[in-house]
């Protein structure tokens, strides 16, 4: 369904590859977590599948298509087989829930009759059957993400890509979103989800692919977020190590084990800000 063969991606502005020699196969119906620190290449991975970017080296096959050979003209038709969900929902603020979901079908030229069948059905699937006429700002974050998921799957895509879909949500709401994604997966859609959410990954016990500095360092069926080889050090874990010093403010999942973390070291990851370029590129 998705196959990476020795895929590398180097951005023009980047000094190191966003993805380096990644080889991976995802089979139909799988539920795969993509984990790793910010800047580890998760987003690049998803963008390559979406064909927002072309691989610098290697081949990517998705749904029988080799993406490197896909002409720009055919990209839109290829993307109709994919659904995408983002951390920031990306809903249209002036359209109702119904119209937000219907938008995805309207721009594909589907008939109004079809839209009036398909949209309520998918809204029921994500648990928003009674909120068709609300505007996005009238909904909670979790409900907005459900709308985004409904929009992503209303066209019944074979693959659902989710880029940190629970990143803006509290644990309880996140669990609800995961239920929706699990149902979609059970119905046959392959789900590939990039996430930072330790609890979710550990609860679901699905296949976990871990990236670090653009390399796949772990591919484990029924895995958890952390392994003994790559323990995750969070802010609270780090405290006892440096009990005598000022607390170091560290974004919990951004760094690998840091028993000897030295912010002044020239090789320290803390000073590598190149991922900011890529975040800016995402915003364009």
């Amino acid at each position: 369904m998705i196959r990476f063969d020795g895929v590398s991606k180097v951005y023009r502005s980047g000094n190191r590859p966003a993805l380096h020699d990644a080889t991976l196969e995802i089979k139909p119906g799988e539920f795969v977590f993509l984990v790793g620190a910010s800047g580890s290449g998760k987003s690049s991975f998803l963008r390559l599948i979406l064909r927002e970017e072309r691989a610098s080296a290697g081949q990517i096959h998705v749904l029988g298509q080799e993406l490197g050979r896909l002409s720009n003209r055919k990209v839109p038709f290829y993307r109709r087989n994919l659904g995408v969900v983002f951390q920031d929902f990306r809903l249209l603020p002036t359209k109702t829930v119904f119209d937000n979901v219907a938008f995805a079908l309207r721009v594909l030229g589907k008939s109004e009759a079809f839209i009036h069948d398909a949209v309520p059905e998918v809204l029921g699937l994500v648990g928003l059957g009674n909120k068709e006429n609300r505007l996005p700002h009238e909904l909670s974050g979790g409900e907005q993400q459900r709308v985004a998921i409904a929009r992503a799957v209303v066209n019944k895509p074979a693959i659902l890509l989710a880029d940190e879909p629970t990143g803006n949500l509290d644990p309880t709401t996140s669990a609800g979103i995961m239920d929706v994604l699990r149902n979609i997966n059970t119905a046959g859609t392959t789900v590939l989800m990039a996430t930072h959410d330790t609890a979710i990954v550990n609860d679901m016990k699905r296949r976990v692919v871990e990236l670090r500095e653009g390399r796949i360092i772990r591919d484990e069926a029924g895995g958890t977020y952390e392994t003994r080889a790559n323990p995750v050090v969070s802010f609270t874990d780090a405290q006892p190590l440096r009990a005598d010093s000022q607390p170091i403010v560290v974004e919990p999942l951004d760094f690998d084990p840091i028993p000897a973390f030295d912010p002044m070291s020239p090789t320290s990851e803390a000073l590598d800000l190149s991922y900011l370029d890529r975040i800016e590129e995402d915003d364009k």
Partner: protein
Amino acid sequence: MKLSFVLLEAWNGVRRNVSMVVSVILVTLVSLTFVGSAALLQLQIGNMKSYWYDKAQVAVYLCTQYSTLGSCDQQEAGDDQIAAVQAQLESDTLAPYIDKWYFENHDQAFENFTSQFKGSPVVDLVTPDLLPQTFWVNLKDPTQSAIVFEAVGGMSGVESVVDQRSYLDGIFSMLNAASLTAVGVAILMLVAAALLIATTIRLSAFSRRRELAIMRLVGASNWYIQTPFILEGVVAATIGSLLACGAIAVIVIFFVDGYLANALPTTSFVQLADAWFVFPGLLVAGAVLAASSAYVAISRYLRV
């Protein structure tokens, strides 16, 4: 694909960007008015050429007692010399090229002169013997005046041979320069219009970037995404071209027909009917310009 949806999107784009759209309309209006005026000026030049060149004659001026030019030596052309020129014009070599000719003596020349320059003080200074006797020759093909030059130019008693077309050429080259200037200005304005349309489309795309991002994610075809923007540019430019057509019609009706035609009654000027031939060209030019610059702008913005 639903046309109504695409048209609605284009109309919304126009509404969202009123000030930019108005500036596109104005720039298109001015530039296409220049283009149209240049085209009409060319038509006018063509009209005048065919009108005046047909009327233009070759004048064979004979010697007067005052002239020292050509073969003249302050000697009035004699009857035998006049007869020789006349015989040459009627000869087998020249006659096939000549439509008609007539002879004008001193008195007739003086009459024509006084009627042409009526009211001018120069009339009081001129006497019949100052004005040369002249053979006026109408050629079947006015471009072949060289034959007359060759045949009678060197004859005794002939002061000079003048093709009246040479007087007209100066006027026409002046009009040509004016129309070229108009075209030059028009080209600059058209470049400005194209850039302005491109900027407008980019702004419009930016204000709709959320929709565009989602359209691209769910796989809307490029045609579907781009058409509203291209239509937006075309709609604005078409309004501008229609106004330019109106401006040209006003110029033709009030300035050319209303003023110039009265001031210079002997000259035939372009009519509104001629302008109708220019209008479709302006509309097409405006639409093509807008569509191509909008297409380039939106393609660059949406490059996959």
